[in-house]
């Protein structure tokens, strides 16, 4: 039973870390992709979206190649005493990389849905683009960005492939709900724990989807997407 508790707690912790760590890159990349025109934009977009279409196991392998002891950055990190693979941080990184495309896409479409002329009005009122982002674009896009955060949370809860490659299956450290379910399938008398984990997973995912739907509606209301037709 403690194994169940620890897996649920770990999963939620990792998912929350993904939500927090992803805010800045999601907003930055989302804004750049929504509002800026530049050469190589589609390449940036493709790199960001890649983890969405790659098998998570492959994403995990790429991460291991980068962060493993013999990897591109892993050697340098090991030299200063930081070991990433098979730690809690590795589980966060794996779930983060796999979930980030959802975050960026949500932020991008939320910002794209905001009429850029609101920002233009703000500029003409003497407010710089940076402050305009905080005062106009972000508040208007916020529900959509939050919906992205909820999706990322849900996606991180279910992450398996990249996590098992980069973070392994260490109880209390990297054994999340998905890994615990997989682990318990083989264990004798693991049936009831598996069912509890599966039920928890279902409940969390369903709650996340309800939250997502509510936030998307809020975004539509905020941008007056109904009112325009009612008048």
């Amino acid at each position, binding site marked *: 039973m403690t194994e169940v508790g620890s897996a649920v707690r770990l999963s939620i912790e990792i998912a929350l870390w993904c939500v927090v760590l992803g805010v800045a890159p999601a907003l930055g990349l989302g804004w750049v992709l929504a509002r800026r025109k530049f050469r190589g934009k589609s390449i940036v977009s493709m790199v960001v979206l890649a983890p969405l279409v790659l098998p998570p196991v492959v994403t995990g392998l790429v991460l291991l190649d980068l962060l493993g002891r013999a990897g591109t950055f892993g050697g340098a990190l090991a030299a200063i005493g930081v070991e990433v693979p098979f730690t809690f941080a590795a589980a966060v990184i794996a779930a983060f990389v796999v979930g980030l495309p959802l975050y960026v896409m949500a932020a991008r479409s939320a910002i794209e849905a905001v*009429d850029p*002329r*609101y920002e*233009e*009005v*703000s*500029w*003409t*009122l*003497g*407010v*710089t*683009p940076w402050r*305009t982002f905080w*005062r*106009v674009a972000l*508040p*208007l896009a916020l529900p959509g960005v939050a919906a992205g955060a909820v999706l990322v949370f849900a996606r991180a809860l279910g992450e398996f492939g990249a996590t098992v490659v980069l973070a392994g299956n260490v109880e209390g450290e990297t054994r999340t709900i998905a890994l615990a379910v997989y682990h318990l399938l083989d264990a004798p008398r693991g049936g009831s724990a598996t069912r509890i984990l599966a039920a928890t997973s279902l409940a969390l995912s369903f709650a996340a989807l309800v939250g997502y739907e509510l936030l998307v509606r809020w975004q539509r209301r*905020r*941008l*007056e997407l109904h*009112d325009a037709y009612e*008048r």
Partner: protein
Amino acid sequence: MPTSADDAAVFRIEARVTLALGALGLDVALDTRAPALAISGPSGAGKSTCLRILAGLERRATGRVVIAEETWQDSTRRVFVPPWSRRVGWVPQDALLFPHLTVLSNLAYARVADRTEIDRVAKLVSAEHLLDRWPRNLSGGERQRVALGRALLARPRLLLLDEPFAALDRALRVELAERLRSYCRDRSLPLVLVTHDPADAAALADEAYEIRAGKVVAVV
């Protein structure tokens, strides 16, 4: 009408700008000291674009814009003052009130104005009873009036109005035009008005221009 040489300098608007808009180009050639001018023309001719050029929102436009001795754009010298440094009061046709802010917060958006100033401007645009409302609960005419108030409270150096009274009824239109005219006179605030309504143009403007075949020409 300008009363002194100083006023004439304040009211000087010089804009010689071209903008390629797909197949249709727009040629703006204005040089005036009239405190208020109206630009009219058929829809799609580029009236709103003229205002966007003056506001600094059309980066692709090339040429020269000088307002009251201050150069806002000079493509040959690579001068381009960005919109946030121009201090224009742009009132777009569909008002574009910030939907996440109340009327009061919309009015006070540009800077922290003291309450008496906000109340004075709210009264000027007949919006004093709307301060706690949300933009989504306003009629089209109310939105336009609040947008005008928001622009005035930014203390602009040039007022740019895009069909500002289109959604107002005739009586309020005349009254508001009258109030706005004296407000602008008292503060030596030049204005450029885009409208297809000759009555609006007559009520507010001292000089009239028209867009014909992509060129802004004076109406004689």
